[in-house]
């Protein structure tokens, strides 16, 4: 389909596709199996300047927006969502700085993130605060020129690999969600450790770890935004990064669909290729319809966000939910089309099905997204 991307966006997509097909495809199965962090691919993305597509020009980036970020994530995900999420998690860590950073913070971190010299991460979730974000317990207490952080974070993508972490902590327990603040924490700060690495079902090339703060000293100038605005920082960031999860889902689905078609044309049963059976043809047609619908929704949401629109939580949630459900369906069908071969690790669709699952869970489970959408649409009418 013609997506009416600008010439520059087409170039970004083409370049990301090339890296995905020439490099990511070669390491996807190995990195998944052995849980290898794709630092080499991130280096290539840095060299080609794709690490800076969503960073404003004045901070050394390309000056694109959510659309440009999503195009890269989508193309990388066609071959390995684990690699894609390692890239996307830096965007998740960078967006709070882009949106709420003070000038000095932006100048200090964004140019290096744009160049790929710094990897970022976003640390909100805790063992007892998943969907219920506002119940986080990590504390930040102001003492002189420092905030002292105590507590732990769970499920942090790029944990242990990232150089900068945007960490959410409670500065005033009495205020509930309005008592949460965001901080920029650098690797190597005293009292900041990386805990257990998760052994995941999918996106195994990405690193997901616990983070531990034991009297961690964070300079007071590393407070992001004002004290008490952390919850808003997190929610406004998610509004911009949920399309990234949708892009991941569209990419995974596209990869599985392309593989399934090629397989169906080659595999012969009952003297004819699988692709000649109507039962298979309809599955392929449904894959196409769903992927195109998800992509159309994703791209128009990106355009809406990048146009400077003020409120797009509903649209951002809707494209995440729809695309992730499509990815799950398409990858499951791709496994079905390939029969036994779909179920073994020798072929990539088994991995794609595992990778797809997480898109329905992280950055707010799909149930939570439906809650967001429902509350908005009920308000509207």
């Amino acid at each position, binding site marked *: 389909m013609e997506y009416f991307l600008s*010439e520059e966006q087409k*170039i970004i997509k083409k*370049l990301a596709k*090339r890296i995905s097909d020439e490099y990511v495809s070669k390491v996807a199965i190995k990195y998944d199996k052995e849980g290898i962090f794709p630092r080499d691919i991130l280096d290539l993305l840095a*060299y*080609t300047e*794709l690490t800076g*597509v969503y960073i404003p020009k004045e901070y050394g980036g390309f000056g694109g927006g959510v659309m440009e970020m999503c195009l890269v994530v989508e193309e990388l995900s066609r071959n390995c969502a684990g690699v894609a999420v390692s890239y996307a998690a830096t965007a998740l860590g960078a967006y709070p700085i882009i949106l709420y950073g003070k000038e000095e913070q932006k100048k200090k971190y964004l140019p290096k993130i744009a160049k790929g010299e710094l990897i970022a991460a976003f640390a909100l979730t805790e063992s007892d605060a998943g969907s219920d974000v506002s119940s986080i317990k990590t504390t930040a207490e102001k003492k002189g020129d420092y905030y002292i952080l105590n507590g732990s974070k769970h499920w942090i993508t790029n944990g242990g690999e990232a150089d900068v972490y945007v960490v959410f902590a409670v500065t005033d327990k009495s205020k509930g969600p309005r008592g949460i603040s965001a901080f920029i924490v650098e690797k190597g700060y005293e009292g900041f450790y990386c805990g257990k690495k998760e052994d995941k079902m999918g996106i195994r090339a990405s690193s997901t770890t616990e983070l531990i703060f034991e009297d961690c000293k964070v300079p007071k100038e590393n407070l992001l935004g004002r004290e008490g605005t952390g919850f808003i920082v997190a929610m406004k960031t998610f509004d911009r990064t949920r399309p990234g999860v949708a892009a991941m889902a569209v990419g995974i689905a596209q990869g599985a669909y392309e593989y399934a078609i090629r397989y169906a044309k080659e595999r012969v049963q009952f003297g004819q290729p699988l692709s000649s059976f109507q039962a298979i043809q309809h599955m392929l047609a449904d894959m196409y319809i769903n992927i195109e619908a998800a992509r159309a929704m994703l791209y128009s949401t990106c355009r809406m966000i990048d146009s400077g629109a003020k409120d797009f939580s509903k649209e951002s949630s809707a494209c995440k939910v729809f695309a992730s459900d499509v990815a799950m369906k398409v990858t499951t069908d791709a496994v079905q089309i390939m029969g036994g071969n779909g179920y073994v690790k020798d072929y990539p669709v088994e991995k794609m099905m595992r990778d797809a699952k997480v898109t329905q869970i992280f950055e707010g489970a799909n149930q939570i997204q439906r809650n967001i959408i429902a509350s908005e649409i009920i308000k509207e009418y």
Partner: protein
Amino acid sequence: MKILVCIKQVVDPEKVEYNPETRTIKRNAQHLMNNPADLSALEFALRIKDVYKDVHITTLSMGPAECESKIKELIEVGCDSCVLLSDKRLAGSDAYSTAYALAKAIEKLGNFDLVLCGESSLDGETSIVPPQIAEYLNIPHISFATNIKVFDLQRIEIERKFKNQLFRFEVKLPALVSVKKDSAFLRLPKLSLMIKALSYTPQVLSLDDLENFDFSKVGAEGSKTSVDRFVEQSFEDVKCEIYEGLEAAQIECIADLVMRFL
């Protein structure tokens, strides 16, 4: 330092379309690619530019206007300027004529410290264009380089691996070096350079732009060699025999077959 890299646009063997009636190859822009060995040469030039600041890389191609789209790809990896020598009168030129035309264009474009070429082009495979250019330019040349090291912008060291031996040459600049295919792989493009390439148009030279040009030396007429005939190789008569199972009889048949081809 000024480096010139000669880069030919050849027909991509994977996309080639052959017209058996006219016995010609279709040469559309979509079918073209930059000659792989020339891209190895370009990668060496870019590596020199990575180390030394004031390095200017110009590429020179000879071919029809369709080549422009492929030439843009050279800007995407970091070339500073690209030149296309394009003139109908060059059609049918052999290696001798090509070398003459390229040398004249190089003379016109200025004083280069280093001229790099690929060892041969995918479609010609003669390997004689680079040394002939060097002859015309009256500069030393070394063929089949597998590595290039720059000492101090005055001298370079060339490595040539041949079977199990490694040769090292040291040459004073200016010089011409032809580079072995696959001795270096061309780097990925950069986003900002791809955007730059969008609006970049290579400089196009015609033979009229070249000084003291001897028109009798180029084109089919001026060439020393001519194509006598094309011979089509058909793979249709290659027979495929299938031996199923692993019975002694089949194994014997396969062993027989292997022996026949040894």
